[in-house]
Each structure stands twice: as C-alpha cells, then as structure tokens.
C-alpha cells in the first residue's frame, strides 16, 4: 500500500513537471522558465536577407 502511494506521488510530480514544460513550450519559450527566451511569434524581423 505504502509503495503504491509513493509511486503515485512520484508519478504526480513527474506529470506536473511534464505539463509545465508542455505549457511553456506552447507559449513559445525556448528555455523553460527563462523570462527572456520567448520565441518571436509572428515577428517580421526574421528575414535577414532583406537587410543585407
């Protein structure tokens, strides 16, 4: 019984971590947690050739 409870706790912790990673990735974070690494969603700056 104790083993089952601990296994569920471990799985719950892992599930929360995975969910957080998925949410952050969907929000465009390149580095999980990093406040300044969101991807450039819809920005028009990526065509470097235009600036050459």
């Amino acid at each position, binding site marked *: 019984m*104790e*083993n089952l409870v*601990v*296994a569920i*706790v*471990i799985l719950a*912790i*892992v599930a929360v*971590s*995975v969910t*957080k*990673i998925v949410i*952050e990735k969907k929000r465009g974070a*390149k*580095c*999980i*947690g*990093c*406040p*300044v*690494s969101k*991807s*450039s969603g819809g*920005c*028009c*700056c*990526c065509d*470097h050739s*235009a*600036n*050459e």
Partner: protein
Amino acid sequence: MKVALAGNPNSGKTTLFNAITGRVEHVGNWAGVTVEKKEGNIKKSLVEGNADIIAVDLPGAYSLSPFTSEESITSEFVKKENPDVIINIVDATNLSRSLFFTTQLLELGIPVVIALNKSDLSKKKGITINVAALSEKLQCPVIETVSTVTRKNGLQDLISAAVSVKGKKQKAPFEGLEADLTDKKSVEAADKKRFELVKAIVAEVEDRKTSSNRQTRQDAVDRVLAHKWLGIPIFALVMWAVFSISQTYVGPFFADTFVGWIDTFNGWVEGLLGDRVSPVLKAILLDGIIGGVGAVVGFLPLIMVLFFLLALLEDCGYMARVAVVMDRFFKKVGLSGKSIIPMIIGTGCAIPGIMATRTIKNERQRRTTAMLTPFMPCGAKVPVIALFAGVFFNDSAWVGTLMYFVGIALIIIGALIVVRITGEKNKRSYFIMELPEYKFPSIKRALVEMFSRAKAFIVKAGTIILLCNAAVQIMQTFNWKFQVVAEGAENTSILATIASPFAILLIPLGFGVWQLAAASLTGFIAKENVVGTLAVVYSITNFIDTEEFALINGATDVAGVMGLTSAAALAYLMFNLFTPPCFAAIGAMNAEMEDKKWLWGAIAFQLFTGYTVAFVTYQAGTLITTGAFGSGFLPGLIAVTAMIGCVAYLMKKGEQKATAKSALKSA
C-alpha cells in the same frame, strides 16, 4: 485600442512599457536591449473609463528606414499594423537626436503623442524645454514623463492624451521632406533637410545651460573605465568583486540557511516514508527528485546575489563601457562591435543572447557571434562554477572570474579562426555606440531582475532538472534487464553502460569515469543538470554545507568522492562550460544562423574548443603540480593535434579563397 511605443534606442521605452503595463521585461541602460516587439495591457489604474488598451513595445530605431533588423520591426509595425496611436518616447536629455525619428513618425498620418521621457535627468542637467512650444511646433501633445518613479511620473496624462487623440488624423507639420527610398542621393538630401529642421526646432524650444564642449565628471570617469588598457584590468577587478560577494561571502551565507531547509525537508520526507517503502522508490523520490533538485536549488542564493550585482552594473552604465573596451578587440578579429551586446546578454541566458545577434547586419558576423556567444558563462553554468570553486578551490572568486575571461579569450580566438576559414579577414566593421550616462543604479530594478532570474531557475529546477534527475536515478538503479543493480555492480547499470564509452574519450582530460561523463551528457539538456546528476550519481544531497558530510566510499569530502585532482576539476569545469551549450541554445543558434552547414560547423567547433581547453588545462596543470603528464596524454595529444590539423586545413582553404577573391577584384 492599440498603442505602439516607438523611439530611439535607450530612450527608456521598455522602462515606460513596464511602468504602464506592470510587466517586468528586461531593460538595460544601453542601446539594443529590445530586439523583438512585446505586447501588454495597460494598467487599468492609468486608463479612464476602464477601456482595454494594448501597448506594443518596439525595438529602438533612429529612423524609419529599415537599416537594421530592429529598425525594420519598428517601421514594418508602424506602417503595416496601423496602431491607433503612436507614443513616441523622446529622450529629453537628447532632444536634437530624438526628433529626427519623431518628424518621420508624424508623416505617417497615425496620431502621435510624445512622451518627453527622462525629464528629471534633463532638469538636473540644466536643460529647459518649452513643452507648449514643442507641442505647437510638432502639432501633437507632448507630455513630460519620468517612468522610473511611481508618483508624479506623467504616465496617466500620457495615456489620457493617447486616448484623446485616437481616431484623429495626424497632420504632418512639415512638407517637402519626402524622399525616393530607391535613390541614395534623394534620401541623403531629405535627411539633411530634416536635420536642419530639427536643429531649428531645438534652437527654439530648448535652453541648454551646459556646454557640450566642456569635459564633465562623466568624461573623466570614462577616461579611466573605458581606457583601452586600463579598462580590461578594471573589468577583471569588478568581476572578481562580483564573484567574491556572490560566491564567497554574501551568497554562501544565505545558501547555508537555504540548504538547511532543503535538508530538513528531505529528512522529514524520509521519516514519513519509514522502512516499509521499497528502497528503489525511496531512492527515486529522496535521492533522485528531492536530492537532485535540492542540490541544484541550493545554489539559488548565490545566483540571486550574482544577478543582483550584474543588474546594478548594467543599470549604472558600466556594462556599456565594457562594450566599448571590448569593441577594439572584436573589430580586430573581424567581429561586429555589436557582437558584445549578445555576449553580455548571454551572461544571463545564452538563448536571448543568441537571439540578439539578429541586430547584426553582416551575415558572417551574425553567425559567428551566434556561434561564439555560448562561450560566455550563462546563469545555468553558475551553479557548476560555484560547485567546483567551492569544492576544489576553497570558494575562490578567481575561478568564476577566470571562466569569464577564458570565455572572452575563446571568443576572440574563435572569431580569428572563423574569419580565416570564411576568407573574409580583410573586412572590418565600424560600430558607433551611444554611451548612456552614469547613474545611481535602481535597487528596485535590480531586485526585479534578481527575482525574475530566481523564478526562472526554480521553474527550470522543478521541470527539466527534476525529470532528468528522476531519469538518471532510475537508469542508475536498473540494468538493461530492468533488474535492480547489486551494490558494487553499479558499472552494469543503464546509465553506466551509456556513459562509459564517452568516459573513455575523456581519460586524456583527467575525468574518464562514467559518473562524470553522465553528468556532462545530461548537461546538454540543461547545464544545471551537471550539478544535479553529480548529486544523484554520488549520492550527495548537499554541496553547500558539508560539515556533516557522510562518509561515502571512504572519502571525507566531495572532492574525495569525485576522486579528481585540482587540475582535473578545473579541466572538467572548462569542458562543461566551453563545449556546446544546452539543446535549447543550439535550437536558437539554428534559428539565427539559418544554415545547417554553419550550425554543424559551430557545434563541431565548440566540441573542439571544449575538448582542447580541457586537455591543455589538465595536462599542463598535472605537469606543473606533479612534474609529469597526466593519464592518456599521448592519445589525447593525437586527438587534439588531428582536430587542430583540420581547423588549420580549413583556414588555409579560406586564405586561398580570400586570395582568389582579391585577385579577381584587382583584375
């Protein structure tokens, strides 16, 4: 309603954006910090009638002509997305420079409100601006603002003015300034006319007490801090002080208490589990999840203090001087002067640093900068530095300082090599950077930056690092038949069998054991994992306070458990710092380089650099300390010589390409 914030670099757009939206976007006391547009809702307390207003913070631009990527974002946005109102942030201390861009914005037909920002600083400098006259001349509202204070900052008036002009057609106050953008001469003539016009407006509305020819105190300080020779030892001294405070004195003081809490929590969970729970599950929860994450999180106070100090340095204007000092070297090795900005941003996290390379116009310089930026130790590498400085070098601050300077040296050497490989060694670039004024750094801003970094660190520790440590613990507990490995047979575990082949390659570097190889491998997922994995594989849950250190394998301290000499420890640290960065940063490199050949070349170059630096450090260090070379010297020498040979061959090919190009040109 959508409001665009546009203005010159370092006019305080992001500070104003943060003040009106309540967000905490990174700001820096220098130009070029913002390279992407950011959106946020304006605080309801600033808006009359509870209307929803979205503010868009645009990168700084001197002109609406798209000369650089950040200027093209700004001009594209204001021209194509048609914001309802443009708030033009004008630096009140530098009116003549700012109004050039303003006159262009006024011609777009979109209502403009001018935020005369940094009004407090302009008054301190004895500059008086006739706001009413300026407003009349430009035919748009002008509001004095100070976005760094919470009261009497003019922000409410600014937003009210923006709301009041919505829907009105902005009339261009001047005519005859249009230019044919396809004709350089026409653009130059129009620019000249525009400058004359701005000069005339400034002469009428501004009363400047100080003479620009006089040497100020700031100039005197700059002569020392940005001196071409003195600047470098001063920077070394500053970084040494930063590391001393964060890693030796203040940081460990808080870390001791913090780690005590983690230990107490670990003990509490252990007591809760009792003896009836399976040892395997106990190990996953206690050693893998709590122990592994706790070992990394234990360094949180050190990181917080470090980022607090770095934020103070940036905010007071010192980091911009460092950029000036480094610019001289960077230009000599074919990098852009702008390359220093991504590299300094990279000290926080390599990813935004790499993203910031898009401000560099020259393709080769941009790719080279993206390739070399990860050599600057980022925040994720700080726990690794702190661990090795603490365990092997008695918390010496020189370890962290050395890592920064080795990083800079590798960037310079790397740039020299790349410029020769690409055959563009004769191309020099010029970079004009406006030096921000020195100011007393904002403690609030530094605290915001510190807590923002701390939050990022905790989120990362609770996600990627937690999962990695749990996986490492499971892979260490079981063999490939999924049986629990017996005590003394750890070499048969899944983790050991995966890491062992890599460990063989690391023998010439002084750390050819599977545990250290495994830690380096997980470091490619996130660099903090090096610490977490070491904690799991050596069953050490507390790297900070080892007074009550449990005897493991007969050793009495962490250094003894790892079985590394000082030379090998320094080599291991450098290997983890100067080999390729984490996968997320490699992804950012891929996005900015836009060329697979460059990306794979960059990864190979980083591997070569990390391996060579670690080899030289270990073998030279061992020779100095013991009088003989370390283990695996000959095979290591062969491997390093072969890699150097490959690089030399590519450089020769590049030279031939360059010679052929110049011969073709002269013909």
